[in-house]
């Protein structure tokens, strides 16, 4: 049943999020072309000397458009998240809730489906934004030729010089896996925190539920901030006591790896907490208007 739920959730989200990601990629390419145009016109003006009004106007429009598109690309992460949250809200607290909650499916699976599809689209958005920025930095920042070789060289240096040096002090594969795993857990915790705020907002308000959800999110986030700070302070204190003699880079790196691990524990704990709180409200206190 989870697969079927995910299939339908994925379909519902794809309707808006797929065109959005295409738009980001397209916008990125347009911004790249406009920036290249601006740079080239600027260089031509400098070498030829003197510049016409039209050339200046084109440069101004191109530069402005490129900046606006760049801002839009950055804002797309927020739009993606908002669309995912709105899908959750509609499916559970809107009229569609009559369909969702009468399905012969466990409450846990309903939440899992929303969580996994939401995380999937957030990650897709992140990948699309990174690809767009790569295209921009490689193709949109040079006046000589098509490709900015400086950027390519920087990437090459990272893999041929910096990374091998880093392996002397840290276990790069282990740290990479740790970062990815903690990133995924943190994303799950964040998403469930927002979902929880939406659910509680729906419980406390009869009208203006979205506004109530935003208010609840701010409150919950404040609580999470306090818990996280307290937890990590205690952990750092505990780790620090046994690591006062951090003399080598390797010892520092081990200390940091351990701290990252504790962050993972914190995010996992928050994710589990929010999951069960949402489940409990849906199972024991569901009151669909």
């Amino acid at each position, binding site marked *: 049943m989870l697969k079927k739920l995910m299939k339908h959730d994925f379909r519902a989200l794809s309707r808006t999020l797929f065109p959005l990601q295409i738009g980001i990629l397209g916008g990125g390419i347009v911004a790249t072309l406009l920036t290249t145009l601006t740079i080239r016109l600027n260089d031509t003006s400098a070498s030829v000397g003197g510049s016409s009004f039209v050339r200046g106007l084109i440069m101004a429009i191109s530069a402005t458009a490129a900046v606006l598109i760049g801002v839009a690309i950055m804002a797309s992460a927020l739009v993606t998240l908002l669309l995912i949250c709105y899908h959750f809200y509609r499916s559970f607290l809107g*009229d569609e809730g009559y369909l969702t909650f009468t399905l012969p499916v*466990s409450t846990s699976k309903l939440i899992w489906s929303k969580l996994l599809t939401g995380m999937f689209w957030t990650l897709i958005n992140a990948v699309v934004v990174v690809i767009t920025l790569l295209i921009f930095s490689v193709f949109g920042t040079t006046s000589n030729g098509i490709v900015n070789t400086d950027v390519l060289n920087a990437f090459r240096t990272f893999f041929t010089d910096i990374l091998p040096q880093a392996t002397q002090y840290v276990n790069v594969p282990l740290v990479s896996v740790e970062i990815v795993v903690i990133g995924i857990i943190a994303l799950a915790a964040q998403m469930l925190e927002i979902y929880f705020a939406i659910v509680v907002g729906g419980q406390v308000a009869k009208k203006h539920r979205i506004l109530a959800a935003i208010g609840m999110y701010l409150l919950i986030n404040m609580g999470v901030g306090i818990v996280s700070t307290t937890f990590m302070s205690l952990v750092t204190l505990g780790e620090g006591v046994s690591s006062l003699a951090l003399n080598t880079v390797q010892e520092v790196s081990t200390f940091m790896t351990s701290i990252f691990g504790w962050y993972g524990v914190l995010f996992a704990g928050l994710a589990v907490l929010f999951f069960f709180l949402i489940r409990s409200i849906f199972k024991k206190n569901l009151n669909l208007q």
Partner: protein
Amino acid sequence: MQSILEVRALSKRYGSTLALNNVDITLPKGKIIGLLGPNGSGKTTLLKIVAGLLTPTSGIVLVDNQPVGEGTKALISYLPERTYLPDWMTVEDCLEYFTDFYADFDMARAREMLARLNVPADKRMKQLSKGTREKMQLVLVMSRRAKLYLLDEPIGGVDPATRDYILDTIIGNYDNEATILISTHLIADVEKVLDEFLFLKDGVITMHDTTDNVRATQGKSLDELFREVFRC
């Protein structure tokens, strides 16, 4: 006789309002039963609790001897008073959705009913009129081979011709083993199809009888009895 629905000492409170007050009901299998009462009497609340959309304040609800949950949702086919299908879904998407989640969904029956309604499969819900969307929901709900159908005001707010179509659909797709609980205040229209009825007033069941018994013992139609009992 085996019961499909048992409700014991059920109460539901919304703030200071008591929507259902200590309701006890036992419904047999294989009957069409009217849940009758004026607006605000608690009909929708009762159906929503049985469907699992509301949590009761107190009391027990058993559907085919199971407490309301994942298991009972597979047995119940519920038609709410509002349209709940997402606007972006096509008719075909809706059919696929019901096929995916309900093992008892009869696709052939659904297609046949939709063909009679002339609803194109590629139309989105937002492209259909409100009336057609309501019919679409009725088709989906009645195309299931469920044990208990909960129909909340299925004929409210529609023209007399559509009313006849809906009642024909309900009767035409009714399985003798299943029970249909229809909530309405349009008694005259549904009276002819009802085996039993429940009168609900201010959250209390005031009468539960067979329609034949009312006619035989009181010499009145159900509509006349309703008007008498619920006179303002």
